């Protein structure tokens, strides 16, 4: 370790401590301020359990759907290159630059009972706004860029000659996907899945707009925490926060392991490429 620049190090660590470490500590301190028992009691109340269940369930569903969507979109962008691909490429990043509350509002306006689309849907028995379906829509919208941007470089890096070799060896298009493409993409798919899962778990802005926040029905964990704070239950809010963070931490650790695997695979590919150029 070098400490030639004490000012720089103090600045960086100071900022980290005040905006990250201490606030995080405060949450844990508050969560366990009544001891283990009251912590467990707070996070196992029926409303809390239901909120966690709903959050994990919808986040999983979002992750599954958007990983598939990310794969398909990346294939369209990288392989098919339709004339509108530039526009599509730009649209993918839109959810990142729109305030999430606005994303929720957009859904409420489009699918709400006041709009023709919402009216038509409700006439056919589908209600989007203030239901779990609405939350799913919001989560899908907010997390799609993460899935697409994770899959794109992986699709780019595919060696098309391996696919050609498989065709020549008699594999149909479907079999090539199953035996050659998907196995190579497995790390990227896992990474996209976990990234969208974590992002969906912590989403607040769009969910609070679109969900209606009915306890036991459409109340998501992040909104539940917010509600507790509104009712001056700081300890309960902190306890629920710790549980939510745990879920994300687990996903994050798995994600990091996958990234390390990816990194190793890439390093192998690089040394191999170097070896080849040496021969040429």
């Amino acid at each position: 370790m070098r400490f030639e620049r004490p000012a720089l190090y103090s600045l960086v660590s100071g900022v980290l401590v005040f905006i990250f470490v201490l606030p995080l500590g405060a949450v844990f301190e508050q969560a366990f301020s009544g001891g283990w028992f009251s912590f467990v009691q707070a996070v196992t109340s029926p409303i809390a359990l239901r909120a966690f269940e709903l959050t994990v369930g919808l986040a999983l569903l979002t992750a599954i759907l958007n990983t598939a969507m990310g794969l398909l979109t990346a294939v369209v962008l990288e392989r098919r290159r339709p004339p509108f691909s530039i526009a599509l490429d730009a649209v993918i990043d839109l959810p990142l630059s729109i305030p999430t509350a606005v994303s929720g509002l957009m859904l409420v306006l489009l699918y709400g009972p006041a709009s023709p689309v919402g009216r038509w849907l409700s006439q056919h028995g589908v209600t989007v706004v203030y239901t779990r379906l609405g939350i799913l829509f919001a989560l899908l919208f907010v997390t799609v860029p993460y899935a697409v941007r994770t899959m794109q470089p992986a699709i780019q890096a595919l060696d098309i000659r391996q696919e050609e070799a498989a065709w020549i060896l008699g594999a149909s298009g479907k079999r090539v996907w199953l035996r050659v493409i998907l196995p190579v993409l497995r790390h990227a798919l896992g990474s996209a899945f976990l990234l969208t899962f974590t992002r969906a778990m912590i989403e607040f802005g769009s969910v609070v707009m679109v969900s209606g926040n009915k306890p036991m029905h459409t109340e998501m964990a992040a909104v539940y925490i917010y509600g507790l704070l509104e009712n001056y239950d700081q300890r309960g809010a902190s306890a629920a926060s710790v549980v939510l963070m745990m879920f994300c931490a687990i996903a994050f650790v798995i994600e990091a392991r996958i990234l390390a695997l990816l990194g190793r695979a890439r390093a192998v590919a690089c040394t191999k490429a170097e070896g080849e150029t040496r021969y040429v």
Partner: protein
Amino acid sequence: MAIEFVEVEKVYPGGTRSVRGVSFQIREGEMVGVLGPSGSGKTTVLRLITGLERPTKGDVWIGGRRVTDLPPQQRNVGLVFQNYALFQHMTVYDNISFGLKEKRVSQNEIDHRVRELLRFMRLETYANRFPHELSGGQQQRVALARALAPRPQILLFDEPFAAIDTQIRRELRTFVRQVHEETGVTSLFVTHDQEEALEVADRVLVLHEGRVEQLGTPEEVYERPETLFVASFIGESNVWMRPLQNGHVEVAGIALPVDPSLPDSAEVAVVVRPKDVQIEPASADEAHAQVIRSAFKGAYSACWVRTKDCEIWEVHIPSTERHRESAGTWVRMRVLKSFVFPR
């Protein structure tokens, strides 16, 4: 299986005309080297045989059957890619068994065939390795085994030795030839290395700018080139442009015979191989040229002479003759053999 191209043309989207009206016939069991500079369409010819590309015009026939519209899965050909294109996430064993599994061969048979190929390719101890754990030469042999496993009717190689260093390259060349002799399967390999093509192939298909220049035995393309391109591309050559005069053409003051069917006073290209020129010392008045430099090259000595028209010729003198002329010597030249092509 025999392969036939009938007036095949391939235009890539974007307008690149890669192959322009190519026709040729390859006989059953032959090993043919496809030779040409980069951009001559060699790889496209190979891909047209595999079905990875479809011709814009014309037809491809394999074993008397028109396969122009047949997808690669149904053509029963094997291809060894330039950089092998091994499945990186599969072991050597799984790579080799890939094609057999796709053909729904029984597990017993797959195992038997893969073991047989592993032995044949001297890869027995590597069955459970992954491609990135192998050397270039070993990867090449896995790629060859993978292509051979489903017993293809035709075996194709795309620049098979390009990424391998010289010594192993020579070994593999012999090995590939040996594989061809043992399996007897019709084989084509693409190369830009003429030495490789002449050494390994039964016949050589010379391509230039998407056209067939000549298809012949190594001896034929070397000794009886049909076009100026073949004459200058294969082997060393001195090439001069000359007008035709009274039924003959003159280079360095030496009159050379010409095919009488060529029209008079036309521009022709004269090709003389360095080995087809003999030189002997002469007085400055009688001489055709003066030696500038000579170099010992093992089996022969190369000698560069400047003619009175200030053209530089390369001349090869077999080492057995020990005729190394020193720089400055005046020499008379005898042209033993020459080729004349209309321009």
